[in-house]
């Protein structure tokens, strides 16, 4: 019985690691798809549905979460590095700016600035450290 349980746990661990790899690959695919789609709308979505992509993403995350709970995996929280923050901000700015490309430049920059400010404050509110 114990042997069976240990075997299953080992299989789950391998599965967990593989799903984490899959999640990484899928996020990489989504990011590059978004970039391509932002430059030329329809280039990916006419061949592969984004609805399906997000369903796959949510299914992967849910499976990872369930497996993590079964295996009692605790992931320590890491603060986001400056490099990652810069990449995320640059990527978001590029997507927003490109989606508003048909607007005039001033309005585009104004909306971009407001969007980034909103994201920044939302981030602050949602992930602020509890100092009390």
């Amino acid at each position, binding site marked *: 019985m114990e042997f069976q349980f240990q075997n299953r746990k*080992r299989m789950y*661990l*391998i599965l*967990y*690691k*593989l799903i*984490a*790899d*899959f999640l*990484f*690959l899928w996020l990489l*695919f989504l990011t590059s798809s978004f970039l391509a789609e932002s*430059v*030329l*709308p329809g*280039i*990916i979505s*006419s*061949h*592969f549905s984004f609805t399906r992509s997000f369903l796959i993403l949510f299914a992967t995350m849910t499976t990872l979460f369930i497996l993590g709970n079964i295996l009692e*995996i605790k*992931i*320590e929280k890491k603060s986001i590095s400056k490099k990652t923050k810069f990449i995320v901000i640059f990527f978001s700015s590029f997507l927003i700016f490109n989606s508003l*490309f048909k607007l005039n430049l001033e309005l585009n920059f104004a909306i971009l600035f407001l969007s980034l400010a909103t994201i920044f404050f939302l981030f602050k509110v949602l992930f602020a450290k509890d100092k009390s």
Partner: protein
Amino acid sequence: MFDLTPQIKLEKKDRVLYFWLRISLYLIALLFFVFILFSIFFPNRRYIFSFETIHSEKNTLPQPYLKDNSEINQKEIKKEGFFFSAIPLGSYSKVKINLKSSKNSSLPSVEIFAKKSYRAFSYPEDKPFGFKNGTLIKNEADYFIISEEKARKFSSPETLKNLGYSPEQFMNVSKEELHYNLSGNDISFQDSYPNSSLLKIEDNFYILENQTLKKFFSREAFLSQYEENQAIVKNPDFLNIFPVSEQPIGFADGTLVSNGISVYIISSGKIFPINNPETFQNKGFLWEDIIPIGEDEMGFYEKTKLFTIYSPHPDGTVFQSQENSQYYLIKENKKHLLPSEKIAQSWLKKSLVKATISDTINCQLKKNGTFRPAYSCEMILASFENLTNSEYQFQLVPADDFQASSLEVIFKKDWNISNLKMSLLDIFNKIILRYGISISK
């Protein structure tokens, strides 16, 4: 190899298994990436039509039609078969046709024929047309007017002069060209003006029909049908001689007009809004042929459904075959030869549409469905490569009646360097267009 979950430690033998599974996962991801790239660079164009839900918006293939151009509204397919069109923009190497019959119906032997041509240019050919009514022509010393499709000769130069015509108005034609209109009675000195006479009174243009004057509602409307010098100038008193009809004459069939930013095509008293520039260009129309018109002129016509890329060219369109340079006029779903350039000129006051018609290729549907009767066949489109337009006309001919369920048409591209180059160029052009970048050579 980097580890995304370093906190999870595996036993040694599990690490080997994980390594190989991970390699497989990354290989699958690579294959998926290649698959997406191939889908982008060598895209297929798929059309589907369901005979179970004929009016469904999910049908991407336009409604199939019968020989008389009436649309199919049922899934029962007769032995005569049906026609359907597909217009994939770009060039494709082959086309695959899949046909499914209804559950309770077996599929007989079915043959599919395909050709590349405008739908209207594939209409059956009917008798050739001569010069257009109202045209003034001369052959050696004989002068004629085309009236009620017949060439009526002016009996003498005096008759001509007396009616107000001058010899310069007449187009020199050969005897052969003259024979395409039946000969009518001569116009003698004591005769009145023949029907189809064109008149200019003050700044208005008229045509005499059934001895009644019909006014063109604008100079542009007249010029869409005739040359200005074909009308004889008369005094306003002339309006007392013949009754004037209340029904005005509009633009020639096939005329392109614009109102605001919208472009329309006129045919048989109806005005069809052209849905987008892609349709306009694909139909071989030229922007310089558009005549701007006002709301009052628009109101003269009955506004009807959109003219889409799948709408056949309307009545009044003049095609020139690129194979043999012959001219054809479209009228009532028939194609009429205009036997000479001069005859074509009498019908055409704007640019003609250059058209080609390919040889017909065919294939026999073969069974390939496992659970449900499905039949398919493939045709190579290499012989259509150099033809300019993108309209494919198909004819499905079954050996017997049957009930159809769905029809699928898939255009495929071959995986080769030339298609890759074309796709890359297409993507590049789309990016240029999106960002409004102009490239000077």
